[in-house]
């Protein structure tokens, strides 16, 4: 009878999400079942999610963990913690930078920055190639989204005003 740590974590995560939802929605009036207020459904759903979390967690106590091949899908066991974290960190950073820069600095700055940062997420990146790719992709995006499709996306407000 071995425990499945992954399942236990899964259950715990669900419980955590349920708890946060209950806390956030605590000031909403649930009303009655017959006259539902804004807080009724969030509360009910959060409780149900929490119950599922508990069920999954309990089940993990007696369920046999699947063998190494499927245990942690997608992770190469040979790599260390940094390689596991590298992709998420840089991708989130890239998106964040894009989000923060696109309005004040426009597409021509935000886009290459985001692309270059995101290429750092992969160990196969070649630096110079990424640079060219970033510039080329930005030009392509400006033409596609701004010229062709006419999206109201800021291109270079510090230069051409829009």
């Amino acid at each position: 009878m071995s425990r499945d740590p992954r399942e236990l974590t899964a259950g715990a995560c669900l419980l955590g999400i349920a708890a946060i939802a209950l806390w956030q929605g605590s000031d909403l009036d649930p009303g009655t079942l017959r006259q539902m207020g804004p807080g009724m459904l969030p509360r009910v759903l959060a409780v149900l999610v929490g119950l599922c979390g508990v069920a999954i967690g309990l089940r993990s106590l007696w369920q046999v963990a699947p063998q190494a091949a499927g245990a942690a899908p997608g992770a190469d066991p040979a790599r260390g913690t940094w390689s596991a974290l590298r992709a998420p960190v840089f991708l989130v950073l890239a998106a964040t930078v894009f989000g923060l820069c696109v309005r004040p600095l426009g597409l021509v700055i935000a886009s290459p920055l985001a692309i270059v940062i995101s290429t750092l997420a992969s160990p196969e990146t070649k630096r110079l190639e990424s640079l060219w790719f970033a510039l080329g992709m930005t030009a392509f995006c400006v033409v596609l989204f701004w010229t062709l499709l006419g999206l109201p996306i800021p291109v270079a407000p510090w230069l051409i005003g829009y």
Partner: protein
Amino acid sequence: MSDLIHNLQLGFATSLSLLNIVLCLGGCLIGTLIGVLPGIGPIATIAMLLPITFNVDPTSALIMLAGIYYGAQYGGSTTAILVNIPGEATAVVTVLDGHPMARQGRAGIALGIAAIGSFIAGTISTLVVAALGVPLSELALWFGPPEYFSLMVLGLTLAIVLVQGSLLKAGSMVLLGLLLSTVGADLETGQDRLTFGLDELSDGIDFAVLAMGLFGFAEVLRNLQSFEAQPQVHTTIGRLLPSREDFKRALRPILRGTGLGSILGILPGNGAVLAPFASYALEKRIADDSSRFGRGAIEGVAGPEAANNAGAQTAFIPLLTLGIPPNAVMALMVGAMTIHGIIPGPQVINNRPDLFWGMVTSMWIGNLALLAINLPLVGLWVRLLRVPYRLMFPAILIFCCIGIYSINNRPGDVLLMAGFGIVGHSLFRLGFEPAPLLLGFVLGRLLEEKLRQALVLSRGSFLPFVTRPVSCGLLIVAVAVLIIALLPAVRKKRAEVSLS
């Protein structure tokens, strides 16, 4: 019958003018492009291209705008199959079997059957619109809040059938999706719910933000973590188009999907988004070997694709016969018509038959054009898969960022997408599947809205849900689906227990 033929003749006379053909083709091309690009949907594009249509007559303007709409349906499935990212809400189900097919080197077949299935569905549903448009719209009016609620409950039970893994985990994902759908301003009181005080969330989470995060971002993360997972590694460019054998397998799912989509498309409030899920669930249930699903079963692509295209066509029925838009894109069409001086309503079909029939016939022309455009493109798309992943994923990322930003012009949406990407990746690592979450999210809003409306109308009584015939029927079907889905699991457990 002769009336119908006469009307169709009038329609073709209108839609086969050179200008209208060009506009139709142009709309379909733009639509396909939009469908392929993440985040940007037909709504933003149609809104942007509205000014261009000021100088042409209303029928021509609508033909082009409509082309964009169903072109986007075709395009959305392309990215779903190739890179596991649904371009549109309706393409979410296509990733389940379409992408595994791509990984097996059958991308061309998947894309091909999606295009062909959509065309067949489009042809049949155009006939449905032409022949049954008016009576069907009356049917839509019968759907009150209790009926709608029951339909949504039925839709949720379909989620159980969708997944391969643990039913408990699928159920928890559906519930989580429902929970996420409650984020935002409450319908009746206007209060903010679960928004953590953030203004960005006060209108709820946009579907595209969630989908791009859960599927797009998470997919990229997953591929970067594991070299073997990347799609390029395995594909050899196999057959580019479906074989006769493939086609025979896919034909009945296509026909069934068309039926489902045609009916669900008429329902207001975007009930049409249920169609591909329903089709997938149906095909999986009646297939001889349902374990093929989720691993590249062609029926899992053909049925849903046909369903969503059929739904896209019949969504025009309430617009053209009653003047009520069933979804946000149609609301835009209302605006387009109004600007051109034609206010949509029950009179349009009589006062402007050229407009009505011109649009109906151009639907078919549009589907033909899309088939002609997309089949040759299959080779191009499949070749695109050969681009080294280290270049592909930044491209996917930047398209996602720009696309998501362009929905509401809100930088916060991009950050939210990244957040969901992390969440999506974590869910994957913990063994959860994202598709039920999306289904729960998509249905959640409608579910709650209709539940509360029904309760106000019935003054708090739950009786109408079972006393009204259609609602009762739908609930019975939902219970039946649940029982049928859970029975094998119960039997299996019993077998396991008795063996040990």
